[in-house]
C-alpha cells in the first residue's frame, strides 16, 4: 500500500472525526446559550478555543458573537477546520484513496459531502441549526457504519482507525484543557449552579452527559468528570480508550509488516501511563500541565506514525 494512501486514509478519518466533534461543540454551545443566566458570549469563546481556532477567528471578526462563532465553526471557508471545510477535506482525501475504500464507504462519504455542502450553501437560520447539527452527526455516523460494515480488517482499516483516534484524543484533551479551570478545586463551590452548567457543557461536548450518570451514579464532581474523559477505558471518547485503539491498530500493522517502529513504543508508553495514573494524582500535579503534556505526546505519536509508514516524500 502506498504511503500517500495511508496518509490519505489517516487524514480522511481525522477530518470526519473533527467535523463530528465540532458539531458536538456547537451543540453544547447552543445548549449553554439557552441555560445562561447572563447574556454573555464567553461560552462561544471557549467553544472556539476548544476547536483550536480562537486566534484565527479573532483575525476575521472584531468580537465574539454567537452568530459569527457558529458561522465560523460551521461553514467559513477561511477556517480550514470548519465543518464544511473538514468534510470537503475528508471527501477529497477519500477521492484520492478511492481504491482503498469500499464502494459503500466511499459513497457514504460522497453523499455526506454533497448533502452538507448544499445544506451549508447559505447561512442557516437559528431555527434550522439543530436539524443541521443532527444531520452532520448522522451523516458522519453513516460513513462510520458503512466503513465498519464493509471494510476488510487490513492496512487501510488500521490507518483509518489510527487517524480517528489521534484526532479524537486531541479533541477531547483540548475540550478539557479549555475548561480545566472549572474543574480545579479552587473553583469548586458546592451547589453553584454556574459550575453545574459548565460541567454539563463539558460532558455535552463529548455527548456523555447521560453516560456520566450511568457510570458515576452521582452529581457532577470535577474529579469524576476528569476521570471519565481521561482515564475511563469504557468511555469511547476518553484518552485511555483512544490510546487503547491506537495501540491495537498499531500492533496489527506490526504483525502484518513484521516490523516494530518508534511509534509503537511511544503509543504503548502513553497507554501505560493512562492506565497507571490515578485521577487524584493528575489533579494534584496540575490538570492543565497534564493535558498540555498529553497533547504534545499525541502529536509526537502522529508524527512518528507518518514517518514510520512513509506518509510523505523524504
Amino acid at each position, binding site marked *: 500500500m*502506498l504511503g500517500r494512501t495511508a496518509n490519505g486514509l489517516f487524514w480522511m478519518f481525522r477530518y470526519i472525526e473533527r467535523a463530528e466533534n465540532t458539531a458536538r461543540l456547537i451543540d453544547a454551545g447552543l445548549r449553554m446559550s439557552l441555560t445562561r443566566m447572563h447574556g454573555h458570549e464567553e461560552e462561544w469563546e471557549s467553544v472556539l478555543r476548544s476547536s483550536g481556532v480562537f486566534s484565527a477567528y479573532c483575525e476575521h471578526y472584531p468580537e465574539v458573537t454567537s452568530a459569527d462563532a457558529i458561522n465560523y465553526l460551521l461553514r467559513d471557508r477561511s477556517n480550514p477546520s470548519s465543518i464544511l471545510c473538514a468534510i470537503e477535506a475528508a471527501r477529497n482525501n477519500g*477521492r484520492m484513496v478511492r*481504491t482503498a475504500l469500499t464502494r459503500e464507504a466511499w459513497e457514504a462519504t*460522497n453523499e455526506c459531502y454533497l448533502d452538507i455542502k448544499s445544506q451549508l450553501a447559505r447561512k442557516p437560520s437559528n431555527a434550522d441549526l439543530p436539524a443541521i447539527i443532527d444531520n452532520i452527526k448522522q451523516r458522519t455516523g453513516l460513513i462510520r457504519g458503512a466503513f465498519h460494515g464493509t471494510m476488510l480488517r487490513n492496512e487501510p482499516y488500521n490507518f483509518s482507525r489510527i487517524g480517528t483516534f489521534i484526532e479524537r484524543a486531541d479533541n477531547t484533551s483540548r475540550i478539557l484543557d479549555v475548561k480545566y479551570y472549572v474543574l480545579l478545586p479552587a473553583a469548586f463551590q458546592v451547589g453553584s449552579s454556574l459550575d453545574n452548567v459548565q460541567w454539563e457543557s463539558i460532558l455535552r461536548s463529548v455527548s456523555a452527559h447521560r453516560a456520566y450518570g450511568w457510570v458515576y451514579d452521582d452529581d457532577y464532581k470535577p474529579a469524576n468528570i476528569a476521570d471519565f474523559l481521561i482515564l475511563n477505558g469504557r468511555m469511547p471518547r476518553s484518552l485511555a480508550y483512544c490510546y487503547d485503539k491506537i495501540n491495537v491498530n498499531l500492533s496489527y*500493522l506490526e504483525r502484518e*509488516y513484521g516490523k516494530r517502529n518508534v511509534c509503537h513504543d511511544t503509543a504503548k508508553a502513553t497507554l501505560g501511563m493512562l492506565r497507571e495514573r490515578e485521577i487524584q494524582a493528575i489533579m494534584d500535579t496540575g490538570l492543565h500541565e497534564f493535558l498540555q503534556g498529553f497533547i504534545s505526546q499525541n502529536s509526537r505519536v502522529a508524527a512518528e506514525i507518518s514517518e514510520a*509508514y*512513509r506518509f510523505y516524500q523524504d
Partner: protein
Amino acid sequence: MPFDEMLTADSLPRAPYNGYFNWHSEQKTSDLIKKSRDAENIFRKTGITFAVYGKEDSSERLIPFDIVPRIISGSEWRKLAQGIEQRVMALNAFLDDIYHKQEIIKAGRVPRALIEKNDAFLPEMIGMRPPGGVYTHIIGTDIVRTGEGQFYVLEDNARTPSGVSYMLENRETMMQMFPELFHLNKVRPVENYPKLLRQSLAAVAPPGCNGKPRIAVLTPGIFNSAFYEHAYLADQMGVELVEGSDLRVMDGKVVMRTTQGYQAIDVLYRRVDDDFLDPLSFRPDSTLGVPGIMDVYRAGNITIANAPGTGIADDKAIYSYMPEIVEFYTGQKPILENVPTYRCSEPDTLKYVLENLPELVVKEVHGSGGYGMLVGPAASKRECKEFAEKLKARPGNYIAQPTLSLSTVPILVKKGLAPRHVDLRPFVLVSNKIQIIPGGLTRVALKEGSLVVNSSQGGGTKDTWVLED
C-alpha cells in the same frame, strides 16, 4: 434528413432496434423520465463526475446520461472492428517506422516537415523500441456514421483516450435499472474490460521482469478532469493508483513509496501527458511526472503505456494522411473511410476553406475536447469572420472538414423520443494481439440539431450495445 439509427423514414424500427422498440412502446414516458432521474442519482452518488476547466463554482459536473441505448448489429460491428483493427495495426507500424527508418517519409508519402517539426514528435524516442514493440496500447477510435453501413473515422485518439469508465458505468447502470432489456436482447458484454486491460498491460511487461508484472496507473491527481476514471480503472484492475510524488528512480528502476519501503513498477499505465512525464527530459517545471523515468525506459526496465511520442500518430495534421498510412503498412485499401480533410497549410486549400467557411468544420490541429473549433453551419457571420482572421494568421494550425450529416439516435425527452446526433468511441487494446471491446462510448449532442458531442460542450452519453448475431 440525417440517418436515424433506430427508425426508418416510415418510422419503423430498424432490425437491431426491434426488441428495444417493442419494449419501449409498452413503457410510460413518465416512468422512464423517473428512471432517468434515478440513473442520475446513481451517478451522483458514485461520484462519476468530470471537472470543467475554468469554471470556479461548478468545478465538478455529471455528464448527462440518456437511458435509450444505442444499438449496433453484429454484422455492422464486424465491419467496424475489422476496419479499426487494420487502422490500429497501421498506427503502431507508422510509429515504429517514424522513430526508426522513416521509410514512409523516404517514400514521399508523408512530408518530413510534418513529422519532424511537430511538437508531438519526440526526438527522445528515435531508435527506441518499447517492450513488445507496442507504441499505442490503448486506443479510442472516434467514429461517426452517415448512413446504412457508412462509417467514418473522425479521430484516432492514440495517446490517452478517456471515457472507458463511462462505457462501463453506463452499462452497469442500464443493467441495474432495466434487467429485462438484457433478457430480451443478446448484448455482448463489455464489463471484462478492466481484466483485459490488465492482461494486455501485463503482456507487454519489460523482458527482464520476473514473475507477475507489477502494474500501476499514473494520474495527475484528484483535480484532473478524468480522475474518476483513473481511480476506477486502478480499482477494477486491482493495481495501485500512483501520483508523480509516489514515484522515483532508484537503482535503474521506477519504484513507488509504500508503507513498507520502495517497490519496483514494471508497467506504468500513465494518464499524464508526454510533456509532464519526466522533468529531466521534457517540461522541467513538471511535478506530475518522475524525474529520470525516460532513462529507465530507454534501458528497457519499464513499460510506459501509451509510449511517449505516440501523439504524433493521432495529430490532426497527420490524420489527413491516414488513408496513405494504412495502405503503406498493410498493403490494403482502408476498410474505414477518413472524413475528407482540407489542410489549411496548403495555400490553394486555405483559399477554398476561407471561401466555404459556413459549410465547414474547422479544427485546431492540436486541440481537443471541442475547444477552439468552428462549426460553420451553426456559426454566425461574425463568428465566421473572426475565425477567418485566426485562420489567415496561422493556417498551419488548422484543418477543415465538410460538415457530415451525422446519424441520429433518439434520446428520451418529456414528450417521448427525439433524435439527436451521436458519435462512437470503441476502445482497443494492443499487446501481442489486438482486442476491440464490443461496444464503446456513445456521445450524444443533447441540444436539438447540435453536432457537438463533447461533454465539455453540453454533450451526454448513452450505453452502447453490440448485438450477438
